[in-house]
């Protein structure tokens, strides 16, 4: 896919893992939300992160993306240590979406994606005020790239619509487009199908496959087991902030400990009896 061409530059790194997190621990006072979690994401793979509510999945995501500074542990992206600053993480090539959609509601879809291009463009004050050829070229390229990404996620026709006016499913896809605009090597999706109907879920699935096919690695947090087991190459199950099981969808699906974790800790969880 041309939309994510730039990411192919990572081919130089083809052999090493995209992301290596080791011993990541996050304590809030006396509460250990994430305890000694290790995770490796390889090139072009889709990794699923599952676990009952409160297992620490989103906290772990926040540790990876610099929103939290992990109490212990290290995170390496493409062989480089990641500083715990959201902006530095994005610059290094890891982008995310949010569990509760956090779009810029009063901006149009196109503008939202253009904000994602911020860290890959460089026009500063003087350039912006003088409006030289460099500024115009960069604005044009930013706009074109944003439109390209909107087309890629299937929102090409809604580019001038306000984000807050868009249907829920479109907002989720817009968030993905905005994250892709930062030219990531690794995309973290926090519950990308929450609140979606089966058709939208299927579309989300297709979209994630297409993103993977364009050369990115993807990590997905999800509660929808059917979705996760269809989508992922590997699945990691977190329980009480620790890695319970790691393996192929089949291994994880049939692991008695996973079933117990779901039924035992959240008996009313409808997914638990799968």
């Amino acid at each position, binding site marked *: 896919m041309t939309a994510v061409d730039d990411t192919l530059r990572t081919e130089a790194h083809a052999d090493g893992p995209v992301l290596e997190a080791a011993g990541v621990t996050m304590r809030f006072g006396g509460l250990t939300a994430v305890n000694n979690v290790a995770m490796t994401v390889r090139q072009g793979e889709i990794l699923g992160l599952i676990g009952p509510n409160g297992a620490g999945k989103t906290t772990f995501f926040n540790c990876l993306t610099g929103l939290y500074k992990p109490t212990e542990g290290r995170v390496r992206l493409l062989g480089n240590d990641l500083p715990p600053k959201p902006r530095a993480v994005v610059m290094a090539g890891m982008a995310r979406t949010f569990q509760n959609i956090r779009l810029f509601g009063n901006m149009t879809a196109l503008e939202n994606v253009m904000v994602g291009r911020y860290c890959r463009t460089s026009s500063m004050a003087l350039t*912006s*005020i003088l409006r030289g050829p460099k500024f115009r070229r960069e*604005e044009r390229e930013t706009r074109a790239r944003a439109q390209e990404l909107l087309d890629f996620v299937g929102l090409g026709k809604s580019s001038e619509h306000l984000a807050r006016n868009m249907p829920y499913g479109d907002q989720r896809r817009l968030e993905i487009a905005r994250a892709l605009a930062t030219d990531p090597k690794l995309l973290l999706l926090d519950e990308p199908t929450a609140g979606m109907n089966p058709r939208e879920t299927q579309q989300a699935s297709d979209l994630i496959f297409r993103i993977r096919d364009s050369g990115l690695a993807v990590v997905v947090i999800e509660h929808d087991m059917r979705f996760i087991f269809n989508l992922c190459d590997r699945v990691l199950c977190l329980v009480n902030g620790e890695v319970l099981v790691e393996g192929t969808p089949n291994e994880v699906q049939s692991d008695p400990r996973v079933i117990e974790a779901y039924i035992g800790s959240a008996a009313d969880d409808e997914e638990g009896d799968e």
Partner: protein
Amino acid sequence: MSTSTDIDTGYADEADQVSIWDRIGRPVAPFAWPLVLGGAVILAAGCFLSWSYTSDVLGNLSIDFYPGAIQNLMIIAAILAVLFALMYRGPLSRLGEWLASATALRTLGLGSTVFMALVIALIGLQSGGLINVMPGAWVSLVGAVLLLVGAAGLTPRASRDPLHAHLPAWLDILTIVVLLATVLFGAAYVLDIEDGTVFSLVVLFTGLVAYTLTRAGFFTWVGIVAQTHRRVLMLGAVAVAFLFPFTQDGSDANMSIATQVLIFASTALGLNIVVGLAGLLDLGYIAFLGAGAYIGAMFSHSAFATIGWKPNFLVVVVIGALVSATLGLIIGSPTLRVSGDYLAIVTLAFGEIFRLAMGNLDGQDGPKLTNGPNGIPAIPDLEIGGFSFGETHEVLGITLGRFANYYFLLLLLAAFIITVFTRLNDSRIGRGWIAIREDEKAAEAMGVNTFGLKLFAFAGGAFLAGMAGTIKAHHDVSVTPDQYIFLESAFLLAAVVLGGMGTVAGVLIGATILKLMPEKLRFVADYRLLIFGLLLVLMMRFRPEGIVASKRRQLEFHEEDEELADRVEEVHLVEEQEAKA
């Protein structure tokens, strides 16, 4: 289509008033239209008769067939009423499809009646009794009441959305020209009014007409036209601003007010970058203007200037701007990491520290830079390239005095600040600022350099204020600490909030209102804190986005209003189409 029209003409919030209008209007409904026309004619006719027995009330309203200022206003109202009536039914009915004529007539009828009642009460008060009110005034009041009752009898119809009115370009441009010409002559006219009461009445009337046209949906259309012909509007506005001194015929009194308005407006525009674009609350902004002014004074040829080096004025402007920007960086870098309220308090304190520091750098408590509370007086007029700002010049037979000279210089400065403002707003940096205002965490997680952008807004705003300050020093002749008190910061902020955060036009209007009113009206000057305070409270309650709303800001202030969001989107889509065409 019909839903959007509803929003546009404000029927939604009128729903509970409908019954009152209906109750008045139902009995007269069959002959409502002739009643409106008749009322308008009677209203106008009354204006040609004498209104007052004595000639010293509200200008001079005592001469038959020689309408005074107030009477002219009511004639304008009557003409507007006739136009709207002919749109409702008659030769202008095609225009009436687009404008909500009945709604406009109701507003105009109510406004004219209140206005006439007010005028009669004022004549009675000022000349010692209603006995001195002449029949003409009563005739006009009757006309206004007939207009009101007649308008109540008309049925408001859903008009077509002016958004989809595609008129030939020359008509669009003609509208812009007419509006700008109205602004130019209106400003010249208003500034010439000596009588405070007449001035207030003119301001009131201007508000009434503006509100009527808004209700008719006229300004929705003007907004689209302004957007599609941005260049024409800009050139026109520059031309109007440039021509203004030529309407004053050498009178320094009005030009002095105009220059003060321009200094205030330029500073407010700089503050608007900080407040309106970056969304930071700065309560000490006047300190940056003060820093520029002190630099301008210290490097001037004044005998009291404390620095021996006398560089070219343009160099002084740059130094003043840089010093201000440096202060902005110093105060901003430790504080911009904390959220809004803390920043407000820190900036407030900074403003006070600046004032106190300037009052103490007198050679006893610190280096001798500012002469302490005495300040730096006797700053000579500017001289740039042999052009002396202190002398009067003759251009095309029209005398341009000292203030007119400064006016042109300040106009250049304002144009510069407006260019910086609009270009930054429409750039990568501007998008970053919006993202920060919307959701700072998300912006940071998307790779936006939130701290850097906020610091830049802060220092950039300070830079522009510093530039304005260096000119202000020469304009004011002296610089003292007590010119840069907290209240001035508050007024600057009030101008931004009142006019409309994030817009140029709004801040220009806000600054003009806040600066012009106290100059023209003694009672406003005495009670200006009370009046502006009330004004701000009312604005916050009824229109938090300001007089001229930036669409984005309007959306931010009304997160729950989905109709508004749909409307803004619709307008945006039409504008995109127009821009492409």
